[in-house]
């Protein structure tokens, strides 16, 4: 499997790369960056709810390289888990800083997202986005809508949904994927019709709404 660091080939790769990094060379760092850059960027954007992660990506790779040089990576074959651990630390620092900025006591919260309260304009945009999304949902066939509600909102498994709605697993996947695709098309269509929505969707993706 592409990118699966548990397989021997990947272990061998990192057993070659880690000494490179330890010796201070740049080739090892370049390989590390090439393999993990896209995943690290998505991870940070997903958890931080923003597309503006450039600095954090840079900080993460710096922290990974420094941690390797400090001898913290004991098994080169577990490089992905090591990178994730560093990412978690980066996020923890980010949230702690956000918590400090908001003047929150650690007695009250152990962790908080840097999510500011919405101003009236943002509230209005959020309401419009919600109405639009709901309109799209209502435009889908009833069975497709039911599948989306049960799967994404209620967290029912495919098995539960198939049993309760009397559909086969193949039908379930087909309908779910078709509905998801249709939803994506309708979102894109709306963006084309009303360019102003692009901003909403960008904010939506960034904030996860």
């Amino acid at each position, binding site marked *: *499997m*592409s*990118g*699966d*660091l548990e397989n021997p080939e*990947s272990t061998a790769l990192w057993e070659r790369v880690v000494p490179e990094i330890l010796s201070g060379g740049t080739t090892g760092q370049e390989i590390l960056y090439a*393999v993990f850059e*896209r*995943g690290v960027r*998505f*991870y940070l954007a*997903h958890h931080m*709810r923003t597309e503006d992660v450039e600095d954090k990506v840079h900080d993460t790779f710096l922290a990974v390289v420094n941690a390797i040089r400090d001898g913290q990576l004991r098994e080169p074959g577990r*490089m*992905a*888990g090591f990178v*994730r651990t560093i990412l978690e630390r980066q996020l923890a620092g980010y949230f702690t800083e956000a918590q400090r900025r*908001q003047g*929150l*006591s650690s007695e*009250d*919260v*152990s*962790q*908080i*997202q840097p*999510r500011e*309260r*919405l101003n009236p304009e943002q*509230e209005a945009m*959020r*309401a419009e*986005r*919600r*109405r639009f*999304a*709901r309109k*799209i*949902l*209502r435009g889908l066939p009833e069975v497709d*809508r039911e599948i*989306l*509600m049960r*799967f*994404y*909102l*209620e*967290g029912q498994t*495919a098995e539960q949904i198939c049993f309760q709605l009397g559909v086969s697993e193949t039908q379930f996947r087909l309908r*779910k994927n078709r509905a*998801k*695709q249709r*939803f994506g098309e309708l*979102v894109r269509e709306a963006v084309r019709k009303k360019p102003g929505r692009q901003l909403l*969707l960008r904010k*939506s*993706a960034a*904030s*996860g*709404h």
Partner: protein
Amino acid sequence: MTHSQIERNDIVDWYLAGKLQPQVQAEFEDHFLACPHCVERLEQDRRPVAAILEACVAERYQLEDREVWPVALQAWSLGAALAGVALLVTFGLRPAAPPRARIERSSPDRLPVVELAAYRAGGGAGSKIPVAVAGKPFLLKLDLRGLSPSEIYQVSIVTESGELVWSGTAAGTGGQWLEVPVRGARLGPGAFFVRLAGVREYALVVE
């Protein structure tokens, strides 16, 4: 974690919806960090899944209707509105309001109490929607029935799309209810889910 496991178990969808168990989430993250194929799928599905979640929550909790109410009211003629009010007053009729959980006002530490039953156990349409007041601290009482007792519980509050807005820990007492003071969350109006250590989820609306 293999690609067939990821496909078979809808891992990408559930990751984006914030519904994976912590252990599975960590395994998937270890995988996709170095997997361009999975990152591409995540990037591709991120917006549609976020939009679907937003739509599902709005549909389930009728959030849109509450928000457009003032706009709809403006669209009515004044006469019709007055006539409606007169009818309501005359016949003592009241418009149907969505059922809500009762907010107690007499908790030991004087925080308003919001009791939450397990979402998956009773979250069907028409079930009561627990409501907290926006921007105000409150005391969550979480229904622990059916769960193994634990000394410490990790509790988090996430938005409808899985965005973490608050998390904390609470000590278990062995009783049916877990009491969790939520003082620093500053939750704005909207729909949220309260997650209990990845084993139970409760619905919460803040107004």
